[in-house]
């Protein structure tokens, strides 16, 4: 008869079966991955709205080549209105980037209206896009100075909307963080319950090997290693199952996120590169980190649970 060998009598495969815990931890990892993905997406949107197109201020300068009004700040240097405006903008702190639309860009932008008038020689204003640093309100103080040198200058800025959207994104991130916290708490409770059940199943063996000189750290390490590996396995499955859902969501959300330049069509299912390009690198890293985080959480929770339980032994 083949001798069934238990190394030390704990028989952890009986105490902690290999299906129940990975299934539960995998479910938790799946939910955590979705919540984290929501948080990362909210952060991405927030960044885009704060730093990207959403934070652009547009300056219109009618009659850009007309002479500017001479001010004391400019001295006696003669200048056109557009030169005066660009010089003032360049000297304003808090503006991170300036882009004057070229004639071609402007005509492309205004093409529907220009075609309606039927007059391609219609005089166009100069248009300048400004990007301001987050939290800076440079545009508000800029307008009076620009109008002093070039009367009729118009300024439109979307910071009010971008600030509101950034606040919305912030609250979404907080919700995602809270969801991850709840999922982790439930996972810890599940691991604690499974470990306690395992301890009760093998309490006779634990009492015996304790009496034979096994240390608390030995027994807790044996349980923690088993639970840690099961939780890691569950975390792997959670991440794997979350991947297609995150790919689908990323594909749907592409026009609204930093991946807005991604192709709107669904990539061929065999094209791994095209699919992986859909996911931001932060999401990919998150999917990689979830399994070891699940394993580590299971390991640490089991260590604490077993050590606390062993305290009842002399």
């Amino acid at each position, binding site marked *: 008869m083949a001798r069934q060998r*238990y190394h*030390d009598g704990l028989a952890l495969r009986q105490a902690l079966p290999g299906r129940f815990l990975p299934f539960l931890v995998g479910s938790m990892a799946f939910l955590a991955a979705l919540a984290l993905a929501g948080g990362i997406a909210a952060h991405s949107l927030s960044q885009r709205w704060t730093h990207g197109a959403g934070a652009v201020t547009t300056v219109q300068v009618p009659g850009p080549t007309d002479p500017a009004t001479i001010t004391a700040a400019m001295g006696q240097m003669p200048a056109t209105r557009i030169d005066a405006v660009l010089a003032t903008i360049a000297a304003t702190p808090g503006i991170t980037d300036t882009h004057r639309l070229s004639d071609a860009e402007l005509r492309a932008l205004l093409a529907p209206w220009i075609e309606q008038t039927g007059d391609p020689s219609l005089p166009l204003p100069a248009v300048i896009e400004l990007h301001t640093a987050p939290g800076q309100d440079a545009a508000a103080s800029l307008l009076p100075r620009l109008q002093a040198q070039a009367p009729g200058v118009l300024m439109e800025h979307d910071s009010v909307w971008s600030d509101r959207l950034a606040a919305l994104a912030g609250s979404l991130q907080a919700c995602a963080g809270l969801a991850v916290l709840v999922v982790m708490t439930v996972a810890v409770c599940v691991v604690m319950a499974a470990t306690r059940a395992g301890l009760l199943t093998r309490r006779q063996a634990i009492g*015996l090997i304790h*009496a034979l*000189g096994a*240390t608390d*750290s030995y027994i807790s390490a044996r349980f923690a290693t088993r639970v840690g590996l099961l939780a890691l396995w569950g975390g792997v499955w959670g991440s794997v199952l979350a991947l297609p859902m995150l790919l689908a969501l990323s594909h749907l959300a592409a026009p609204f996120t930093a991946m807005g330049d991604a192709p709107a069509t669904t990539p061929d299912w065999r094209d791994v590169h095209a699919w992986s390009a859909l996911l931001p690198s932060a999401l990919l890293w998150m999917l990689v980190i979830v399994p070891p985080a699940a394993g580590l959480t299971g390991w640490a929770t089991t260590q604490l649970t077993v050590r606390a339980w062993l305290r009842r032994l002399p």
Partner: protein
Amino acid sequence: MFRLHDVSYAYGGSQTGVAALSHVSLDVAQGEFRWLLGPSGAGKSSLLSILSLEVQASSGMVEILGVPVRQARRAGLARLRRRIGAVKQDFGLLPDMSVFDNVALPLRLQHRAEAEIAHEVHAIMKWVGLEHRLDALPPQLSGGEQQRVAIARAVIYRPALLVADEPTNALDERQAGRLMRMFHRLAELGTTIVVATHNDAIVAKYPAPTIELLHGHLVRDHG
């Protein structure tokens, strides 16, 4: 060796529990063999439980193999337990482990090599006459066989202190005689041994200093 000074023990706590031992003081040297005698309920099992570190005395000083038990840390107590062998009345065998694995357990906890473990287990099981039952599970053995397995596990790592609670009550006279000769041989090699028994015949056949308890009190030491 061990020393007990004014040791008391009560089941269920020192204040409200049932007193099992009262103000017991003992000093047993290395390599001594002692019978532990007394009627049922005298406190013999409680004394053996204190000596095998299964329970802590409610009060008093316990020093085992030079280690003051109350001051020792948990890891220190674990190390001390590896030097103490115990044979319990209920044998304490794990029913889902083979005889081989039950006997090998103390050596595995000491991280001995598997080849050495196999050699030691075969040797001790041959000595107790059960080398043909290595693959059996404890529930498949008779009471006497289970007792021999428990004895084999208690002595396989040559403990410095061996405590045995009625180790001969399921053995026939020949096996009991072999066991007593082994205990005396172990004592000659330096193991301190305390054996609790009700078997007057075997005490008479193998005379040795005694510890006698009555209602939790020490009534005879070394008499």
